[in-house]
């Protein structure tokens, strides 16, 4: 078994996962864009770029220096922290917005019914206006 090749394939697939993550973050940012979606998008780009450099080093079989590994770890950790904070804040807002939408649907339905009834009553009995 060629373990090195399989290992490289897994690294390449991780890179693909990060690219999909970046696409998803930008899809969220295309909706209502605010700090959390921007933090997600920025963190994703940082994660993809830093992991891309690492993957390139693995593919070219470049033995990295200690400083290089440290810089990679710091860059990847910072951007994944940025991404996670954005993701959690975004998820909280997403859930809250869904619940608010449900609430608003009920409110508008009730209001529309009341307004409709009042208008009909006013039409039937114009003197009361």
């Amino acid at each position, binding site marked *: 078994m060629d373990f090195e090749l399989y290992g490289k394939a897994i690294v390449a697939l991780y890179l693909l996962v990060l690219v999909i993550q970046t696409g998803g973050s930008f899809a969220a940012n*295309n909706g*209502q864009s605010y700090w959390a979606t921007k933090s997600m998008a920025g963190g994703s780009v940082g994660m993809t770029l830093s992991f891309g450099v690492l993957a390139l080093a693995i593919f070219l079989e470049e033995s990295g220096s200690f400083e290089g590994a440290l810089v990679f770890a710091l860059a990847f950790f910072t951007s994944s922290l940025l991404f996670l904070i954005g993701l*959690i804040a975004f998820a909280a807002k*997403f859930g809250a917005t869904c619940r608010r939408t449900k609430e*608003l649907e009920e409110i508008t339905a009730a209001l529309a019914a009341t307004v409709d009834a009042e208008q009909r009553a006013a039409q039937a009995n114009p003197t009361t206006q």
Partner: protein
Amino acid sequence: MPSIAFSIISLLIPLGFVLLLMAPAILILRGKSFWAAWMMAGGVGLLIITMVGQIGFQAYLGNQMAKASASSSGTGLSTDMDRYIELMQISSLIFGGLSMLAFLTYVVGIWGVGKHWQTVSQKARELENLAQDLAAQRGQ
């Protein structure tokens, strides 16, 4: 004993990591239950299975190696070592692939949620305006 403290910490770190990934999925599912949020939750589930499997396999392999080195008193270990190295390589490929699959599921879920966010935020804004309009009409 430092070794117990170390093993507790080494279990707490992946647990905290998993909880951190689980939080967004639960927060979304609380508002709306749909396929993308369930995919995120499923990805975390697969990650937990992978982690538990890896820890279990490592414990098993370490145990086997300790047994082999005890029975052969160090002489027969070199012939067994190749087999253990190969087992470790295969297992790291399997668990690496599985965790990659778990993240893929999670990330596709994030994409679905992100796509959905456009519709949800727009609808919320429209409804907010509609409710204001209706309230203003009533107030006239």
